[in-house]
């Protein structure tokens, strides 16, 4: 009797543990539409390779962009678009709570990474940008860049604030402002004696347009009026840039 009790306990523990492990490792969902189609790949054009029926349980394996790789109980794998996968329920009977990154969700506090290419005065610029949305209408960004002049080269780093009051359009205008530092170095061939390195601080105000493509891809056009303050002089420059970034 005692032995059978132990065995029962062991089996129960095993089941409990395997359930726990399964819950930790994957998300199980149940199809509620009459059918759900699996594609061979995560993207447009990939053909439908399998159709799952109503009430069939599926396991979510991985997410790539807007697509989810799932497996049915026969371990047949395929990819399903987020909108389609949203038409499933959890074993609890509640609708599937998929993590979504949609156009409207950029209002939420989300990070974004990207880069920008452009010109400042006569010099070209290439900049890495990482940002974070503080409020629905204000974003903060840090940037690290390189400046390519004809006789001088530079690196720059700075912090920006972005005000984007309208949130529902694909094309949204914004106003930007920021400050930072630029370190310049004269190209070696033109180095004539004395100091060939100098620093300047800058502030700028600017504006532009963000164009939101798909769910989380942004193309940005921006114009800036840059005020540079060096050791013994100051300068005003205009700069423009085109940027590409994605939030996640």
């Amino acid at each position, binding site marked *: 009797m005692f032995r059978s009790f132990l065995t029962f306990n062991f089996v129960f523990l095993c089941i409990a543990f395997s359930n726990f492990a399964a819950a930790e490792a994957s*998300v199980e969902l149940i199809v509620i539409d009459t059918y759900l189609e699996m594609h061979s790949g995560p993207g447009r054009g*990939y*053909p439908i390779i399998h159709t799952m029926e109503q009430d069939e349980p599926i396991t979510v394996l*991985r997410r790539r962009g807007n697509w989810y790789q799932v497996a049915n109980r026969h371990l047949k794998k395929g990819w399903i678009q987020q909108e389609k996968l949203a038409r499933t329920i959890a074993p609890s009977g509640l609708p599937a*709570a998929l993590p979504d990154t949609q156009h409207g969700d950029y209002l939420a506090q989300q990070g974004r990474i990207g*880069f920008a290419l452009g010109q400042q005065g006569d010099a070209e610029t290439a900049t890495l940008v990482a940002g974070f949305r503080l409020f629905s209408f204000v974003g903060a960004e840090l940037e690290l860049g390189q400046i390519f002049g004809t006789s001088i080269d530079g690196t720059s780093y700075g912090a920006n604030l972005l005000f984007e009051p309208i949130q529902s359009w694909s094309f949204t205008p914004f106003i930007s402002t920021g400050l930072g530092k630029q370190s310049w170095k004269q190209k*070696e061939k033109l180095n004539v004696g004395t100091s060939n390195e100098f620093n300047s601080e800058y502030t700028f105000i600017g504006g532009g347009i963000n164009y939101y493509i*798909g769910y*989380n891809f942004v193309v940005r056009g921006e114009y800036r009026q840059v005020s540079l303050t060096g050791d013994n002089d100051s300068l005003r420059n205009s700069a423009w840039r085109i940027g590409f970034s994605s939030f996640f």
Partner: protein
Amino acid sequence: MANWFQQLLLIAFLSTSLITITTPAWAEDGDVDINPIIVVEPDNTQREAYEAQIDSEFFELGAYAGILAIEDFGSSSVFGVKASFHATEDFFLQANYGQAEAGLSTAEYIYGDSETSIITDRDYRYYNLLVGYNLFPGETFVTQDLTFNSAFYLVAGAGNTDFADNNHFTITVGSGYRIILKDWLTINVDFRDHSFEAEIGPKTKRTHNLEFSTGLTAFF
């Protein structure tokens, strides 16, 4: 006698139960219950739990090797690392860093490099920041039973080339082909043009440096 009585009882019982079953609950006229439709929204805590459980793969990281034709300085082997961020099914952002060593120019080759050398630093290092577009996503059929997902993509962007002791703003355009070997592993073949204004003595000229490379990347 008893049998007959039992039959009667049975009929009586069945008929009453039949009436009970067939009489619907809404038999009384005009007394209809309308249940309001409740929309059940997925809750946020569950969403966060899902987010932790589903393996989201946006990044692709890898290395490549190939041939870089450095204009005027022959062709060299090039090695690099690349990182991509897949923003949507169509677009991705990619950063590359590569290194090569420039060979000899024709003049240096013929007359000896100490006489005619126009550069001292032969290291060619570059980085670039690119936008990619998966132009033709599809499948590659190797045999009847072996099929891989693949994509032909275009890239464009800019970056820096550090060559001959100078930084050069470099525009990079190219195309590539990605075969997804496993769910997490891909092989890439890339063809790219790195173009910049090079200083040749007092003059500058736009050079095109063509790169052909192949590499492995992993999604994570």
